[in-house]
C-alpha cells in the first residue's frame, strides 16, 4: 500500500497528544524525524495496520488536547498508524464530538432531547443562541451544540461542557438553570491554564479522597472554574440505601473510587465464587438464572455466553456496551459512576466464562465522570491482581481496555460497536454472521450491556435458580427503570420484575398535584407510547409484549397533560435522522421523510394523508433496514398514532403490525 499523505504538519501540542496514545515515533517512516538510516529499510505494513484500533483513541487525544482535529493532526495520526487519510477523515467525520473545523477549546452540549425538552430546554437554547450565535457556531470563546440525550434525565434539563487541554476538564449543569448554564458557557479567566493542583473532589465524597494517589485519568478531576459541583451519583437514586436493592445496593454506600470500600460491601466475592465454579459452572448458573439482556433486545445471556464459549476459533472477546445513548436512559451511568468496581468484577467473570483474555469497555463520550471512575477502578484492580496476568492466582488472565465513543448513538448497536472499536466507521454489519461467530476483529464475541453484566454478581452469589425465583417466570431478577419527565421524584428505580407501571410511578410520588398523565414513553425513542389510562401494564418483558409495547432499555418517561406530543414526536424523528449511520436507504432517507411529514402535520397539514405516508415509510424502515435503529425508528410515532390517537385515529388500537 503506497499511501499518500497531506503536506500539512502537526503542531507541537498535536504531536504530543498523538504520541501520548501511540508512544513516540520510531523513525521517519511513522512520523518521526527522518534520519539517513531510514533510507535503508521500510517500515509499516501489517504491524502498523494491526494497530488501527488506536485510531479512535488517537483522534480523541487530539480533540481533547486542542479542541478540534486539524488537517495536520489528522495527517500525523495517519502516518503513525499507516491509515489512508481519506479513511481517517471518514471516521473522524462520523462522530458528533469531533470537530474538523477550528473552534474554541470549550464546547457546551445542551441536551434538547425528549426528557430535557419536557423540562424546559427551549428557553436555554434561545439563551445560548442569543449570546453565542446559532448552534455549531461560536463567538471565539465558546462553542455550543444541541445534544441528543446526555443521560441526566433525572435532573433535566442538562448541559455538559468540555474544555480541551493537556488533561481536558468537564462540568455539568443539571438541572441547568440559566445562571448555571451561563457559568458553563463563560470561558474561565484562567481558560488557557489547565490541570494543576487538586481541586474539590468531584465525586461527592469529600476531602478523604484527596489523600489517595489517584490513577491518572483522561479527564482532570478539577471541574471547570465557575461551575457548580456535580451532585453525588447516589442522588440519581431516590431510594438509595433501600434494603430491597440488589443491583443498586452499594450506590451511595461506598466511595466509588475505593476498592476497599467495594470489598467491604461484598465486592469480589462473586469472582471468587466464579473461580471456584469454573467457566462451565458460571455458564450453568447464568443459564439457570434466566437472565436476559437489559440493553433492549432481551436475548438470553446464558445462551449468548455458551455460544461464544463453544466457538473453536480464538481469541474470544468480551465487549461491554456502555454506549448508553437511548433517550431517557441513564441507568448505566449511575452504575458506572456510583459502583464502577461492580462492572469491572462482572466483566472479569464474563471474560472467564466465555474464555476471553481481553474485554473492551465501550463507554459513550458524553460521560466524563463515569469514564474517570472506571479508569480509576481498572488501574486499582490491576494493582491488586484483580486484572491482568493470573487473576487472583487462578491462572486466568484478563484485562480491560476502555474505548471512548465520540457522540454516535449507532455505536451502541451490537455490531456497529465493533467497527467503532476497530477504527472503522460505526456502521452496523449484516447478520448473519452473528457476533458470537464473527464479532470484534472477526472473532467470537459476547456483547453485553452494563446492567446485564452487573446482574451476574447476584446470580453467582445467590445461585442461578435462586435468582430465577425473583421476578416472574419470563422475566427473572431485579430490573432498573429510568424514570423521568413529569413525576415528583424522577430517578433510577430498582424493582423486581412484576410491578406495574402504576406501582413505579407511585413509588416516585406520582405526578405533581393537579396534573394528569397524557402518555408514558416506554423503552426510549425506539420504544412506544402508552396512554395515561394504561398504567396497569406489568413491567415485565412478557407483560409489555402482551400489551403491544416493550420495556426496551428500561425508560419510563412520563409526559403530563402539559406536554406537547407533536413536538415530542418531531424531536424523536429528528433524533433518528441525526443518529442514522446513513448506510442503508430505508433508514437514511426514511428518517428524513418521517421528520418532514411530522413537521408538515405540526404546521397544520392534513393529518390523514400524512399518517398514511408515514405508515408506508415506517413499514419499509421496519422491514428493510439493516439494523435496529432503522427498524425501530417508526415505533414511537406509530404508537402515538394508533395508541394515543394523536392524529385523529381511534385511540386504543394495539401498536402492532399495520398494513398500509
Amino acid at each position, binding site marked *: 500500500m503506497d499511501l499518500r499523505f*497531506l503536506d500539512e504538519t502537526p503542531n507541537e501540542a498535536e504531536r504530543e497528544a498523538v504520541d501520548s496514545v501511540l508512544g513516540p515515533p520510531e523513525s521517519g517512516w511513522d512520523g518521526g524525524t527522518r534520519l539517513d538510516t531510514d533510507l535503508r529499510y521500510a517500515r509499516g505494513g501489517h504491524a502498523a495496520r494491526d494497530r488501527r484500533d488506536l485510531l479512535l483513541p488517537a483522534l480523541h487525544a487530539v480533540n481533547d488536547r486542542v479542541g478540534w482535529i486539524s488537517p495536520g493532526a489528522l495527517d500525523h495520526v495517519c502516518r503513525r498508524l499507516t491509515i489512508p487519510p481519506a479513511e481517517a477523515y471518514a471516521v473522524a*467525520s462520523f*462522530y458528533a464530538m469531533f470537530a474538523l473545523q477550528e473552534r474554541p477549546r470549550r464546547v457546551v452540549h445542551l441536551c434538547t432531547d425528549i426528557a430535557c425538552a419536557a423540562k424546559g430546554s427551549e428557553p436555554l437554547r434561545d439563551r445560548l443562541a442569543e449570546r453565542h450565535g446559532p448552534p455549531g457556531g461560536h463567538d471565539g470563546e465558546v462553542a455550543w451544540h444541541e445534544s441528543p440525550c446526555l443521560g441526566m434525565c433525572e435532573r433535566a434539563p442538562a448541559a455538559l461542557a468540555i474544555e480541551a487541554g493537556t488533561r481536558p476538564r468537564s462540568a455539568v449543569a443539571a438541572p441547568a438553570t440559566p445562571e448555571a448554564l451561563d457559568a458553563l458557557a463563560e470561558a474561565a479567566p484562567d481558560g488557557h491554564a489547565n490541570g494543576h493542583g487538586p481541586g474539590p473532589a468531584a465525586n461527592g465524597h469529600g476531602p478523604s479522597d484527596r489523600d489517595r494517589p489517584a490513577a491518572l485519568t483522561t479527564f482532570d478531576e478539577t471541574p471547570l472554574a465557575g461551575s457548580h459541583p456535580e451532585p453525588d451519583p447516589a442522588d440519581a437514586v431516590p431510594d438509595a440505601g433501600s434494603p430491597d436493592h440488589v443491583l443498586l445496593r452499594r450506590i451511595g454506600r461506598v466511595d466509588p473510587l475505593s476498592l476497599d470500600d467495594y470489598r467491604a460491601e461484598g465486592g469480589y466475592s462473586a469472582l471468587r465464587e466464579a473461580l471456584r465454579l469454573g467457566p462451565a459452572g458460571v455458564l450453568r448458573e447464568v443459564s439457570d438464572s434466566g437472565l436476559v439482556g437489559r440493553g433492549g433486545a432481551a436475548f438470553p445471556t446464558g445462551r449468548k455466553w455458551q455460544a461464544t464459549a463453544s466457538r473453536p476459533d480464538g481469541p474470544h472477546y468480551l465487549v461491554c456496551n456502555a454506549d448508553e445513548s437511548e433517550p431517557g436512559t441513564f441507568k448505566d451511568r449511575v452504575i458506572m459512576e456510583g459502583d464502577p468496581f461492580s462492572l469491572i468484577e462482572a466483566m472479569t467473570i464474563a471474560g472467564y466464562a466465555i474464555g476471553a483474555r481481553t474485554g473492551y469497555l465501550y463507554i459513550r463520550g458524553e460521560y466524563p465522570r463515569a469514564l474517570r471512575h472506571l479508569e480509576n477502578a481498572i488501574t486499582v484492580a490491576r494493582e491488586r491482581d484483580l486484572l491482568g496476568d493470573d487473576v487472583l492466582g487462578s491462572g486466568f488472565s484478563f484485562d480491560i481496555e476502555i474505548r471512548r465513543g465520540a457522540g454516535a448513538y449507532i455505536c451502541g448497536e451490537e455490531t456497529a460497536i465493533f467497527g467503532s472499536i476497530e477504527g472503522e466507521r460505526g456502521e452496523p454489519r449484516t447478520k448473519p454472521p452473528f457476533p458470537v461467530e464473527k464479532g470484534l476483529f472477526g472473532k467470537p464475541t459476547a456483547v453485553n450491556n452494563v446492567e446485564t453484566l452487573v446482574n451476574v454478581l447476584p446470580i453467582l452469589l445467590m445461585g442461578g435458580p435462586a435468582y430465577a425465583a425473583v421476578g416472574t417466570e419470563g422475566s427473572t431478577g431485579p430490573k432498573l427503570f429510568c424514570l423521568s419527565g413529569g413525576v415528583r421524584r424522577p430517578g433510577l428505580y430498582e424493582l423486581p420484575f412484576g410491578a406495574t407501571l402504576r406501582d413505579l410511578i407511585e413509588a416516585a410520588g406520582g405526578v405533581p398535584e393537579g396534573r394528569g398523565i397524557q402518555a408514558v414513553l416506554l423503552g426510549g425513542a425506539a420504544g412506544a407510547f402508552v396512554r395515561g389510562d394504561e398504567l396497569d401494564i406489568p413491567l415485565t418483558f412478557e407483560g409489555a409484549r402482551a400489551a403491544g409495547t416493550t420495556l426496551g432499555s428500561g425508560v419510563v418517561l412520563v409526559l403530563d397533560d402539559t406536554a406537547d406530543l407533536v413536538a415530542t414526536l418531531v424531536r424523536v424523528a*429528528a433524533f433518528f435522522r*441525526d443518529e442514522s449511520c446513513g448506510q442503508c436507504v430505508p433508514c437514511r432517507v426514511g428518517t*428524513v421523510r418521517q421528520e418532514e411529514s411530522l413537521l408538515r402535520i405540526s404546521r397544520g397539514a392534513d393529518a390523514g394523508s400524512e399518517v398514511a405516508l408515514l405508515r408506508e415509510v415506517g413499514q419499509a424502515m421496519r422491514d428493510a433496514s439493516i439494523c435496529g435503529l432503522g427498524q425501530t425508528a417508526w415505533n414511537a410515532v406509530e404508537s402515538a398514532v394508533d395508541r394515543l390517537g394523536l392524529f385523529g385515529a381511534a385511540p386504543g388500537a394495539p401498536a402492532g403490525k399495520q398494513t398500509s
Partner: protein
Amino acid sequence: MTVPVHLAPPKRLIDATIDGEEVRVPEGTTVLDACSASGTEIPTLCYGDTLAPRNACRVCVVEVEGARTLAPACSRKLEPGMSVNTDSERVRHSRKLVLELLGSSVDLSTTPRVPEWMERYEAEPGRFGPRSEPAPLGERDARRAGEHEAGDGSVAATVEQPPKIDNDLYVRDYSKCIMCYKCVDACGDQWQNSFAIGVAGRGFDARISTEHDAPLTDSACVYCGNCIEVCPTGALSFATEFDMRQAGTWDESAQTETTTICTYCGVGCNLTLHVQENEIVKVTSPHDNPVTHGNLCIKGRFGFQHVQRRGEGSARGAEKDPL
C-alpha cells in the same frame, strides 16, 4: 468475482425453496445468485458483480419465511430448508419505497433500468413533495455529524449539489450518488488500494469524500477510473461522457462496443472501446475477464487520444504534433 477459480474442494449441495420452487444449490450460494440461475429477476443497485456485497440499498430485499425482517438477496446465503419469497406484498412494498426514497432524494436520470422498476413497483417519488433547492458546492461536505437544520417539511430534502469538476479525466456529480459504497471499495482494499475516497459524515449527510474534501488532484487518486467502472448511477463519469451529455450529443444507441487488448504493456488487459461517430468516447473492461475483472489503469482507461490524433489524414501526423 464472476470468474471463480475452482481450487476449493467441492461444495455440499443444499435444498431450499424460492417462490415455492425447490432449488438445489452449492452451499454458500446467495439468494441473488440462486435467483439469477433460475431466471428470477431481482432488482439491484448497490450490488457489484466484482465486489463484496454491501447490501446498503435494500432494493433486492426478499422475504425469508420465519424471519422478522426482510433480507438482502445479494448477501443472504441460502440455508438448508430455507423458504424465500421474492415477490410478496412486503417485498414489493419495501422495493417500492426504496425506489421512491432514492428517487425523491437523488437524481436517477442516468441510472439504467430505474424507470422500468419504478413502473413495476408503482413507485411515485414525487409524493414526498417538491424537491429542495440544490445545496451550494461544498456545503454538504461541511455538514456536521448529528446536526441538521429542521425545515418545515414543505420540500423534500435531496442530495443535489453542483458537479465537482477538478481534473480533466472525470467528473463527480454527487447529485446522482446513492451511497452504494462501490467506488470506495473499488478504490480501497478490494481492487486499487489507493484509498483516495471514503464515506464521510453520517446519515442523510453521508457523502463520498476525499480527506477534508480536497480536490481529487490533491488526493491519493491515481485516475484508474475503476470507480467509474462500478458506479451504478453515473455519479462518476468520464469527462467525455459528462461533456457530451451536457451538450446533448451523448447517444448510447449510436455507439458500438469493441473489445480488444490494451497495447500499453504486456499484462494483456481487455479493453472495451465505446465508439460514437468514429470517436472513442469511453473505455470499459469486461467484468468477466480473468485478467482485469473490469479494472484498468490510467493508461488503459484514459489513454485513448493518441488513437484518434491522426491529423491531416496521415497515420504519422501525431508524431509531427509536438503534443
